[in-house]
């Protein structure tokens, strides 16, 4: 169990630093997606009860919506700027 949490935590830390360091906007969005998947897994592993599963599911759905909206805006605004 501990190994799984360690691997996921390492991937999450790597993604946080890559979000902060890259310049391209599309790559930032991609890494944000990956980070939210990692956090959702960590939540489900941290809370050991069925309620934790519900919270992880709701967080997963709403983070997908956020990245969808940001992707739409990036493509539309590219010309104007």
């Amino acid at each position, binding site marked *: 169990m501990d190994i799984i949490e360690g691997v996921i935590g390492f991937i999450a830390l790597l993604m946080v630093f890559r979000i902060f360091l890259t310049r391209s906007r599309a790559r930032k969005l991609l890494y944000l997606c990956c980070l939210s998947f990692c956090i959702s897994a960590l939540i489900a592993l941290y809370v050991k009860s069925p309620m934790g599963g519900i919270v992880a599911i709701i967080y997963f759905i709403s983070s997908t919506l956020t990245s*969808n909206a940001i992707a739409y805006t990036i*493509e539309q605004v*590219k010309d104007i700027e």
Partner: protein
Amino acid sequence: MENPVIYFYNPTILVGFAIGILSLFAIGSQKDDLHALILTDIVECAMLVIIAGVDTDLAEALILPGLVVSLAELLAVSEILINRKIIKSKKPKPKVYKLFEEFKLPIYTGDLKYNVHMEVLETSPKFFALVLIIYGAILSGFTGGAVIATGLLFYALSLRVRGLELSEELKTLWEGMAGLSGIAWGLWIIGFLEFFLFPKKWLLFLLMAGLGLVLKVGSKLGLIGFIGEAK
């Protein structure tokens, strides 16, 4: 003996005072009105932090109405600023005001690249509004009112962004909620008063006061523009 300033005051209260004084200086040297309005937000943060640093149950009871009152205050000041700007400008004032008209997507004038609506706004708002309204009805009081208002406003916004009309049922529902506001206020006062007069039946009066506050706060957000969309 440690430093007397830290001995008398909590560090939270010190941070709150520092932020408040800094942002008040910034407001004083600002010339534009809207910048000052945005900086007022930080003064509100400083107020909340100072109250929270007291750390008793009374602090939590003071924060809840403070949040709602500051929301209403910012709403009123922003309306005044917008109206003054409209009167000053040469453009004629629009005769018919529609709720959230200014958020409509600019794809109709050909400014944007692709002729597509944002996909999230077509599928998600019904789900969000349903979940938020049911959840807010379970939590009553100020908290439930704020949660319900968030769901209703997001649903209305998503309809208007796609260029659709608000349906008649929704308008009637909202107007009915605004009309219930006076009754809800009476319910809250009666519940709060009887709570001291007849302490034996406390559960009934507690529920009455909570229900009154939910309706009151949830309908207060109809103040944005004319909710009835006057003809």
